[in-house]
């Protein structure tokens, strides 16, 4: 909005901004309150419960679920899944994204259309097919592990990553590559030495989104994995929520929620500049 910032405008805006902040932050405060409340209630009545303690956190670190799996194993599984999906989609997808962005070849339009189509189909649609396929091709042992879930996730994550990265690469001006080409660089040299450094923020964002998806994934994991030693943090979180509110260990559930959310939120904040910048760059150019 244009106009000089008067004191009246400043005060009104600050009040509005604080109101929005309260609405945004309130649920987070609620869950923190639930986590430090030792009474295990699902309905804390005050923001700082009496006898606030970190006992719930202790409990989830020692015995997160009724299944025979330790917190560290859960953490390891989640990290492997998230990192695996994220790294693989970026590694494999970057060259494809570059090709779709820079080269004109027959089938390019069809390919882009294919990506959009895949993005629109909910993953519940391909779950059964992947289940059967993984059983046959990789064997039930692998299907029943995070490798199986990883493969299933990549099925959806890879097209999204390519589409996303293509958007980023589209915003990088071609003149730099053309200059390199005139100077005699090969396509590979141009890609590695010019394009990659410039596209790094876009790659980082795509990696982050892949990491978030892998970290919070539990629907596919529940379908594929029945061996407790391969459970992930998200699965444990989901499993904590019992059928009836009375049975759910709310403090532990809240503590686990916080533990599951923290890594994602932290990384998100760290890369915030790139995420917003990258999305808008891709958007502005259409």
């Amino acid at each position, binding site marked *: 909005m*244009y106009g000089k910032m008067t004191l009246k405008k400043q005060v009104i805006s600050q009040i509005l901004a604080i109101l929005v902040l309260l609405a945004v932050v309130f*649920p987070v405060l609620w869950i923190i309150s639930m986590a430090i409340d030792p009474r295990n209630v699902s309905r804390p009545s005050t923001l700082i419960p009496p006898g606030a303690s970190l006992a719930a956190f202790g409990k989830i670190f020692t015995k997160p679920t009724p299944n025979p799996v330790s917190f560290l194993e859960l953490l390891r599984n989640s990290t492997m899944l998230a990192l695996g999906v994220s790294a693989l989609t970026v590694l494999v997808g970057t060259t494809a994204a570059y090709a779709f962005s820079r080269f004109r*070849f027959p089938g390019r339009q069809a390919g882009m259309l294919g990506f959009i189509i895949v993005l629109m189909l909910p993953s519940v649609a391909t779950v059964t097919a992947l289940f059967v396929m993984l059983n046959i091709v990789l064997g039930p042992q692998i299907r029943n592990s995070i490798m199986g879930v990883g493969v299933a996730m990549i099925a959806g994550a890879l097209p999204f990553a390519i589409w996303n990265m293509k958007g980023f690469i589209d915003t990088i001006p071609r003149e730099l590559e053309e200059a390199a080409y005139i100077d005699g660089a090969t396509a590979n040299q141009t890609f590695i030495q010019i394009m990659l450094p410039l596209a790094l923020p876009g790659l980082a964002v795509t990696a982050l989104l892949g990491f978030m998806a892998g970290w919070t994934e539990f629907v596919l994991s529940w379908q594929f994995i029945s061996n407790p030693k391969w459970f992930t943090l998200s699965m444990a979180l989901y499993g904590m929520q019992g059928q009836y509110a009375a049975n759910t260990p709310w403090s532990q559930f809240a503590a686990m929620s916080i533990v599951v959310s923290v890594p994602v939120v932290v990384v998100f904040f760290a890369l915030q500049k790139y995420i917003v910048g990258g999305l808008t760059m891709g958007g502005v150019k259409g």
Partner: protein
Amino acid sequence: MATAKLTKIPPQASASDLAKREQRRILRTALIYILPAAIIMLLITFWPLVYQLWMSFTEYSNRNLRTSNLLLQMWGTMTGNLVPYNSPPWVGLKNYIATLNGDLGKVLAGFDFWRILLFNFVWTFVNLVFHVGIGVAVAVMLNQEGLRLKRFYRSLYIIPWAMPALVSAMIWRNMFDDQSGAINQLLKAIGMPGNSRWLQQIDPPLSWIPPYVRVPEGANAYFFLFVLILLLIVPYFFRWVRQHWLPFTLVWWIGMELLFVGVLPLLLGGGSQSAEVVPLGSVFPLSFYAVLTTNVWLGWPFMMAIATGALQSIPRELYEAADVDGSSGWYSFWHITVPMIRPAMIPAIIVGMTMTFNQFNVFYFVSGGGPLHQTEILVTQAYRLVNETTVNLPGVGNVRPYGIAASFAYIIFIVLATITLITNRVSRATETYAD
């Protein structure tokens, strides 16, 4: 004195030869760059889609999960030789028809295709209005020159977007608990009645909300409501309508309402005695509003982030010029800000639309599709088909209907694809105009 000997100049490659070689070089490079991703995607992304499509035309169930060769299994169905590879029998479009005409309701409790489609559609539309409205409003507010603590607010507002949707949904469900969830406690604290059973109340709270449809008994009111809603919303995608929105709205909306309440029962037959009036508000129980609040909380930061980036690329001179010409803040907003951020917002809206349409987490975890399956959307139904339904197939017994689930997924896809294509076509027209 030496004269330079004229040497024979070797034939130069012609321009078109070079161009062709260049083309081939580009093609070869492109192929190599795409190959790894293409192979992986062909195997695990596109092939399951084909398999799933085939499944949707068969009576696929648990038995058919165990097979040693997928291709031979498919071939077995085609040739009718079902035994060797556990092939399911071919049924053609039977699964699709069962979904569309309501037969599916016999195995899937509370299923009414047109009602769910209407619900899904209005859900998406209302959510986007709030997401974009609040997102852009906050972005504009924070974009004011001289405002303090901008970065502080912007980083904290991102939290709902950063948190895993699963966690957020469960927190909100907890907050909507009717006995002492946070929402009711807050209401009590400020003196308002705080005992709404947000997630359990069956009677729709605002059941009078228009538009209305009057249909004779036996006809599916929701189908006509859906058609009516489409007719009311779609015209606004056209520029002419937007420019003359006030007279158009008055005439069109009143006219359409008269048509659907007055003329429709006559067209469909059946006396007006047996015709009942069905308002749109009756489709949305209280838990819908709870889930809406949750999803709006989750989704507006995304739009705010995009709008912020777009706003910062608007040159201030435009506003200054408008101010000099005597434009008010509101006028500047509609005629400078909105057109300038539109190219950035439209892709975001399309992505947001797809994600909201298929927003599984909030419905499953906040309302559980309840009460009594009144807040189901297409994807939650698909999930229930795969995980919670059994169908009694003759000769096989009670099994999970994976074939029907597959056809359901493809129906969802067709709906979403249609909406996306239409939006794309129209928004591209708007974009070139804005340029």
